């Protein structure tokens, strides 16, 4: 039984990584911008955060460094896409390719370093409940933090004026512009916020999830997070559920190996990627359903006065 409790705990942990990044990408996409650079931003943030913790010993500074590096890269992306009107797909791809190379380049001096495992944050009393305590209440603070953040984001997007403006910029930038809002500035802020969250997710990977640095350690999680926004039809709560689902698939491979299932490890490692493909195909099957839910101006450039 305890192994199942641990599986649930690991699932929540893995899901948190995906959820943080996907929620950041959701903020981008609500404002009409697709950033394919998630993988690159997460990798750069992973090494920035890891290096910060190695040198300062402070997790908080590590997470801040990760968020800052994600935000800086997102700002470059935003500058090109929003102000210079470059193609969003190509620019995001450039960011991913650059991030893979740059993080490997910077990280070469850190491959031998290891951080001690992070102590779990135990919620008083609840953590002592047998099994349930292990499954749910002995986690890294960010695992709880992301749940709070989802509710905060839902309130922001659907209950505040600023959230409404953000969404209108993604639905109909022309109308928002006509009402006097600076579409480009709002999109730029959204892109930076998204980058900072991708950065936080990347730093979480190298600081807490697997406390070490390996080249390319994000291993496609940025791309899976991108798929999650479609999977969740751009709803924050569904992103969280989807992230836990994919976290579960990731963890299932280790669990199956632990149970001694006779399947080559490579097939199990391919599971999260295959699951992403299958889920993406099933959710996209009805184009009308996607069209209703997708921000109407997603991926379309906007230049005022042209």
């Amino acid at each position, binding site marked *: 039984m305890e192994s199942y409790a641990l599986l649930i705990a690991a699932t929540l942990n893995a899901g948190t990584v995906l959820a943080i990044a996907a929620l950041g990408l959701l903020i981008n996409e609500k404002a009409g911008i697709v950033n394919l650079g998630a993988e690159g931003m997460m990798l750069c943030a992973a090494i920035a955060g890891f290096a910060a913790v190695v040198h300062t010993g402070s997790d908080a500074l590590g997470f801040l460094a990760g968020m800052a590096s994600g935000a800086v890269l997102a700002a470059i992306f935003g500058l090109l896409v929003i102000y*210079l009107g470059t193609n969003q797909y190509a620019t995001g791809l450039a960011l991913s390719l650059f991030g893979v190379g740059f993080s490997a380049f910077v990280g070469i001096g850190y491959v031998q370093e290891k951080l001690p495992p992070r102590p779990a944050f135990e919620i008083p009393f609840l953590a002592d409940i047998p099994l349930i305590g292990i499954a749910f209440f002995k986690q890294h603070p960010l695992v709880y933090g992301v749940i709070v953040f989802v509710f905060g984001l839902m309130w922001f997007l659907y209950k505040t004026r600023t959230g409404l403006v953000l969404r209108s910029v993604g639905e109909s930038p022309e109308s928002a512009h006509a009402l006097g809002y600076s579409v480009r500035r709002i999109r730029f802020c959204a892109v930076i916020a998204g980058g900072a969250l991708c950065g936080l997710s990347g730093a979480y990977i190298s600081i807490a999830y697997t406390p070490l640095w390996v080249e390319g350690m994000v291993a496609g999680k940025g791309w899976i997070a991108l798929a999650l926004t479609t999977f969740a039809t751009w709803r924050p709560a569904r992103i969280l559920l989807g992230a836990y689902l994919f976290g579960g698939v990731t963890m299932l491979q280790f669990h199956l190996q632990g149970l001694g299932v006779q399947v080559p490890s490579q097939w199990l490692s391919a599971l999260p990627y295959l699951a992403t*493909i299958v889920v993406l195909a099933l959710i996209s099957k009805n184009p009308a359903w996607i069209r209703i839910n997708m921000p109407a101006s997603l991926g379309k450039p906007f230049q005022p006065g*042209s």
Partner: protein
Amino acid sequence: MLKLELRPQASDFWRYASPVLALVITVALGIGLFVLLGKDPVRGLQMFFWEPLKSAYALGELMVKATPLLVIALGLAVCYRSNVWNIGAEGQFVIGAVAAAGVALLADKETSRWIVVAVVLAGVAGGMFWAAITAWLKDKFHANEILVSLMLVYVADMVLGYLVYGPWKDPAGYNFPQTKTFEAVTQIPRLMSGSRMSVGLIIALLGVAGAWIFLFKTRAGFAQQVGGLAPAASRYAGFSSRKAVWLALLVSGGAAGLAGALEVAGPLGQLTPYVPAGYGFAAIIVAYVGRLHPVGMVFSAVLMSMFYIGGELAQSRMGLPKSITGVFQGLLLFSLLACDTLVAYRLRWQSRRV
């Protein structure tokens, strides 16, 4: 303040000047990076832009690396001109290499020299098959081809890993994760002794001609590009967008698979976990820097090959990590995209409105 002003017509000058300016910017950033790292920038630039050119042998090596890049980029150009975003060429390359290796492993001492043809065709078929998964999911399920083709890169790596660690592992290979070395008859014929240049280079150059004719001289190539530029006009003309998706992905997948076969039966000579060398991703940059034009991509493939060789030399001679190649590749694409703004816009000084 500096303002962007839409040109009445796209600038032909900047369409071709933009990659050159982007290269200049990348070199400038590279010099900055070398200085920042406390390395001699002149020596650094030598590794990238002089060493790969200075002898006949070095030039041959330059071509050896440019060949797969060019082959993959030719396929991607057809794909991107159709507005289909296949970014999983790396995976199609790997599966092409796997399929080619499967045929090559069947050969023994008595096998005819013609098996090379089967090896190459198997590679093409393997790449096509892998891209067909993306095409099928896009056609039948409207699944986003960017994400699907990229996810399949990871799956392709797992397939390769499974084979070289499992059923295809060389029993006499001291437990190294690799197949046995292929029989000599499966080797892609070399062009001359003393160089590793192979028939692959000729195939790549024929591919340039083929892609040029297809894109600019045939009705099918025209239909393919109209679908990319103006989907509504394309539908009105009766061109099938579904057919375009399939063709785009099969062509680019087949090209990537061909490159995989040429690599594994050429310079590598066996299947190892190190088959994926990032050519599939670098070829995306080759395609863009070459303006998706078959002839332009010859130049950009050679340039990208210089980046690869320069990175290796910078590692062995200057103690820099090899991943500097990836940094420069990314910078080049970034600069190119920024410079491309000048194709559609011009910069104007404008006093701020009150």
